[in-house]
């Protein structure tokens, strides 16, 4: 059956053959289709990087802005028109490095948007330098003696910030990736899905096989609702747990906190300024 989120004609995709991004795209197309969202109400937002090219390859509206700056516009788009489904996409460098501060503060605002981070532990577009998540010891064109910095743990970070939907998946499992993407989009509030993905060109250590060997699916009985135990779970490394690690519904979304939507849900573009009110305000200055 036809997928309205895909293109009718073949498109030129700039990713390397064999790149994990293709699997993520396949999962995302599947998720959007199965969610049955009205196409004109979906907006993809990204910064810069190989992952950030994703909006170009999905047949919807998009805002493909600056490196690291995906989340501020995504937050504003949702706040300006809460009827839109807003999905931000980026790589580990884009979202956790250049955009790290925006990531921290987006979690505080808790806009009802979804963030997919392609996690390949290396910089792809700039050809092989270390990412904030690169594992220690990897030699790169810049980190010539090997990376020694502690890798950032986005899952633990997000849970510590009380992001109410925190998941990690491996793109090699397209079905699970799609399933969790759907749940993330449906989740009310900020949702993070960190997606393990091999970079076939620049990361010869964290390969498809490495991710497969160094991760495991959370058992069926796992309860993601307890934040403290979810945090403990998030500290596990090699093997990394996969699935929804933390989920809660106790926070109110950013848009719901905004005064302007408390009694009137009309998106901003449909609103008109009442000049009589402006004139009346000027009169108070007499």
């Amino acid at each position, binding site marked *: 059956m036809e997928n309205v989120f895909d293109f009718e004609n073949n498109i030129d995709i700039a990713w390397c053959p064999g790149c994990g991004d293709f699997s993520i795209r396949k999962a995302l197309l599947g998720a959007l289709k199965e969610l049955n969202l009205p196409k004109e109400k979906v907006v993809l937002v990204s910064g810069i990087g190989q992952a950030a090219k994703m909006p170009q390859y999905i047949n919807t509206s998009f805002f493909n802005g600056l490196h690291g700056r995906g989340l*501020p516009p995504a937050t504003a788009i949702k706040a300006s028109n809460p009827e839109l489904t807003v999905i931000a996409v980026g790589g580990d460098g884009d979202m956790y490095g250049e955009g790290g501060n925006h990531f921290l*503060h987006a979690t505080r605002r808790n806009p009802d948007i979804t963030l997919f981070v392609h996690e390949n532990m290396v910089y792809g577009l700039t050809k092989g330098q270390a990412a904030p998540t690169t594992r220690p010891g990897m030699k790169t064109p810049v980190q010539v003696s090997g990376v020694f910095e502690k890798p950032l743990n986005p899952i633990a970070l997000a849970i510590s910030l009380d992001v109410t939907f925190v998941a990690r998946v491996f793109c090699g499992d397209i079905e699970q990736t799609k399933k969790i993407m759907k749940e993330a989009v449906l989740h009310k509030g900020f949702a993070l899905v960190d997606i393990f993905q091999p970079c076939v060109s620049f990361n010869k250590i964290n390969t498809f096989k490495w991710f497969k060997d160094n991760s495991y699916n959370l058992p069926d009985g796992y309860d993601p609702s307890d934040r403290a135990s979810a945090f403990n779970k998030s500290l596990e490394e090699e093997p990394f747990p996969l699935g929804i690690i933390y989920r809660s519904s106790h926070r109110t979304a950013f848009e719901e906190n905004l005064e302007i939507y408390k009694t009137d849900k009309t998106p901003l573009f449909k609103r008109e300024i009442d000049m009589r009110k402006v004139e009346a305000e000027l009169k108070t200055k007499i």
Partner: protein
Amino acid sequence: MIKNISDDLVIVLAGEAGQGLQAIESILSSLLKRSGYNFFSTSEFMSRVRGGTNSTEIRVSSKSAAGFMDRIDILIPLHNGAIQHLKKRITESTIVIGEKDKINYGKIIDIQFTKMAAETGSAIFSNTVAAGFICGLLKIDIKECENFILEHFRGKNEDIKIKNAEAVRKGHAAGISLKDININIKKSDDVKQHLLLSGADSVVLGAIAGGCNYVCGYPMSPSTSVLEKLAVYSQKFDIIVEQVEDEVGVVNMALGAWYAGARALVTTSGGGFALMTEGISLCGMIESPLVLHLAQRPGPATGLPTRTEQGDLNLVLYAGHGEFPRIILAPGTLEEGFTLSQKAFNLSAEYQVPVFILTDQFFVDSSYNTPQFNTVKISSEKHIVETEKDYKRFSLAQNGISPRGIPGYGNGKVCADSDEHDEAGYITEDSDMRIKMVNKRHKKFDSIKSAVIPPKLYGNADYKTLVVCWGSTINIVAEAVEALGKKEIAVLHFSWIYPLPDETGGYLKKAGKIIIVENNSSAQFAQLIKLSTGYSIDNKILKYNGFPFSVEEIIKEIKQFI
């Protein structure tokens, strides 16, 4: 000896941060204007929360006068440091009034504000005593003062209201019985119908009238008052006001808001703006509207955080990598502050370019009375289209302006990309398309020309000497030139800075002598004039010590050139 003051009175209040200068100013401004006096006030303060010395100048005049004066007729120092702080401006004819035991100044007229306040219950009422004192000097009816005070403190409990009323009575009695000064300033019924606004108010109300419904900012002097005032109005006018984590986030959030159909304002100062420049470039590439208010202060770096300067024109003119059109406005009067801030939203929406409103500390922190604005003709123009299925955000329109769609309104897709893109918004490296897109963006310059506001001439059209200025200096320069009383000198003021109005060359050509006045060290606007018209202005009056020009200073400087 009795000092006679006619038609123009300059009072300076000076004290430590936290002593309540603003409280006195806020009482006096409303009360004096309500009584029919032309009122002007401006404040200068140190970059500290407590201590130091700050001062507020209050001008009361028979004719409307909103220029900063060096002369001080009456100085009211609230602490001893005030004398040292203002020593360059204190002359033989300055009357100093204050508490003799606290202020070390020989010829002080002793008025015990604090003691009078304590008699009413607490020293905290001394600001109200001081305000009452000035009202007494001006012989304002005591009933009017009392009524105003009760209204001013209406939110407070009964005890506070009664004690403040008592404080204003005590101060008033002391003022009216002081025989050393005889003040004679004309009142006018017209003034009673005027608005009383600060520069910040004018920008804020203009933005609201422009349909602003999303404000992004990060606190930074001297732009913070615009952010805070809009926050106060946010509920009444349905505005989202967000304090963002940093200025990089500020500008990107504002662009996202415009993309989704909001009308967003960014407010900042030079240092914050410097962080936004990549976002300005993105604005140029995705042809987004964006209205940005920049209240200038002296740089480089942290500079003088609470002082004034017109030093960021070049920054705004060249901010952002790559080539793309922009509009720069710089209001001089409160009316311009309102009308240009309103217009900025329509211009930005129509031409899909960043529009900068360039003010400075002197502009935002000065208040005065001004005739009511004409709001009949203004409207908020959206310039948004409902998209069709095959909509292309960057269609190659003749005039460079592609109809702007927003996501969720119509059946089309709205694709914005920071890479060079084709008409639909998809990344391209096709060099022919690159040329088409560069040309399309550039064409908007020509379209903008039809909207340009020409400079305003103050004085005779057959001038021989032309004094050129821009932005916040106009009230000072116009008053100085009027005071010189020479018909052959006129003032040309620019509130539309860029693209430079086509009329500029014509005005300059007619002048035998051209003088530029700028609150910076390198005459940045003169550089722009030279670049755009070829005219070189060599007679420069420049000031960059962190303070605004005074009327007297401009008079003296112009005299050196004529």
